[in-house]
């Protein structure tokens, strides 16, 4: 079975007398080790899909299997545990805890998984070093640049060795050079075997992925390999 298996997934928002169909019975299947970009115009349901994939939200109808277990029937606490274990989030606006330094932000998922202090500290330092922030561990978010903040967020997403790395517009708040650096980091992570799903509306960003799913008005408009990527890498390797 696929790592992520969505069958006839719908997500409806009821606003008074009106029902908004953010997702309409979509089927998606993503294997371990894939690098997928989700694209689409504003309001097409990208973030809604992302929230479902990240187990932050549950579908109104349909079935969602993550790693073989049925997520649509889980309660709040089971979802929290699943997110902690299986999913690493990277958000457009970083979503770091403002009063905590980089180290503590990265340690947080390990705190929630109950890892003893000495080990989680070591692990957090390791990952921070990995994203190139070994010398910034005691800086608070407001003492860091946007790119550095996003690296902290990525370190936090990776620290628990999740099955999936989910990124919603990870470069949206960064200038193009810093954005490129982040995409290089993603590329590297993917090469090491991480499964990456990212939402973006920028073609250049999406081209980094190996597969692009395009949404339109809550439906899948297209789902195909990203051609530009292989070409890009063929060039890069030679």
């Amino acid at each position, binding site marked *: 079975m696929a790592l992520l298996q969505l069958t006839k997934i719908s997500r409806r928002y009821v606003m008074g007398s009106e029902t908004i169909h953010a997702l309409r019975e979509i089927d998606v299947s993503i294997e371990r080790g894939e690098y997928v970009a989700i694209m689409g115009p504003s309001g097409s349901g990208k973030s809604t899909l992302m929230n479902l994939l990240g187990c932050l939200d549950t579908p109104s109808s349909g079935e969602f299997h993550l790693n073989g277990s049925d997520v649509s029937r889980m309660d709040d606490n089971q979802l929290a545990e699943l997110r*902690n274990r299986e999913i690493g989030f990277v958000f457009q606006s970083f979503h770091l805890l403002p009063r905590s330094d980089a180290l503590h932000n990265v340690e*947080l998922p390990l705190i*929630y*998984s109950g890892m003893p202090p000495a080990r989680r500290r070591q692990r957090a330092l390791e990952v921070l070093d990995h994203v190139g922030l070994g010398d910034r561990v005691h800086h608070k978010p407001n003492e860091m640049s946007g790119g550095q903040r996003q690296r902290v967020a990525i370190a936090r997403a990776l620290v628990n060795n999740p099955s999936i790395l989910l990124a919603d517009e990870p470069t949206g708040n960064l200038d193009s050079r810093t954005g490129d650096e982040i995409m290089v980091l993603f590329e590297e992570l993917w090469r090491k075997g991480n499964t990456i799903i990212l939402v973006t509306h920028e073609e250049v960003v999406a081209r980094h992925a190996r597969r692009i799913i395009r949404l339109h008005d809550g439906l899948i408009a297209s789902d195909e390999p990203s051609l530009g990527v292989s070409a890009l890498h063929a060039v890069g390797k030679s």
Partner: protein
Amino acid sequence: MTLWQEIKEGTVISFAALRANKLRSGLTTLGIVIGIVTVTLMATAIQGLNGAFRKSISSMGSDTLFIKRFSWFNDSREAWLKSYRRPLITLDQIEALSRQATLIKAITPFSGCRLPVTYKNRTSRSVSVLGCNEQFVNIGGNTIAEGRFFNAAEANGGRPICTIGSGVATNLFPNISPLGKKIRVGGTTVEIVGIMAQQGNFLGAFSLDNQVIVPMRYYTLAFQHDADYEIQIRVASMEHIEDSKEEIRGILRKLRHVPPSVEDNFAINQQEMFIATFNRVGGIIASAGLFITGLSLFVGGIGIMNIMFVSVAERTKEIGIRKAIGAKRRTILMQFLTEAAGICLFAGLLGLAIAFPVTLVISQFLPATLSLPIVGLAVGVSLLTGIVSGFLPAWRAARMNPVDALRND
């Protein structure tokens, strides 16, 4: 995450949150501070009163009966007036009771008046002069410290001898031993044969050691002819104290010619009555205190609840982040409960810090100290207030939907 880890983490988080909002947190704690000050002072005062009372009352002895015309505690003025018309208790009656009663260990008539006592140029203006027999020393807390008590022959003989309380001893004989010395008691001269052990004072009001004890026979000759005698009795055993009381009651009713179906014209008092009355009064004081305390803690608790709702609203996004990366409901709940409890604990400690000097002032009047159990009580009450008033806001935070929370800016 274990509960302990959650509390530890919650403590770290709440410290940071409190530091970020010093003034706000400080102001909110005011109600709790007042509440805790009241709790502490109430508890200290009650404990002090209790302690003073028990210490004073212990000199009476729980196995001692005090028989008088009056009951110690009367329900009404009428009852007082009625007991005034009762015939006096005579020495003959006491004598007869002493012969007939079988369930008693010691019995003595007892009477007293206040007189000046002089040795050479030193005078104590008002001393309790007490008359009793040789068995007095076997009753209650009366023990001899030095010398001896008078014997049966002396008690009935009327020789002018006495034992003195430790208060009189220190007042009149600051440098020499009083034994064998002759003092002047209200115009007569009496020789000291013994000194009573110190008994302290009664509820801090008057000293029990400022006394001169003379044989009953001498007392009636020298000071008071037809006194209103009291009888002090030590019962044979504490277990059968009710039997003793029944026996004494029967004998006295016969001796004092009380017809059947007419109520006693005397009263058998005991320490227990004191305790019961004290407990009743103490209970009233305590419940009044409890009410005031409860009220201020309630108001304080509402303040904490309010500030916690604000705190939860302000940190909605933080809650969203925490939930997104794996915090469970319980973890978030514990975080905010710990914060509320932390604020209240701080308030509690502040309250204790304020109450402490006040208890020092109280201790001038009562043997009151800020004891460890009271500190524990104050800490416990403040933590509890925090947990109770923080629960609703914390519950709201715990149940937040992470998607909605993350969208919050």
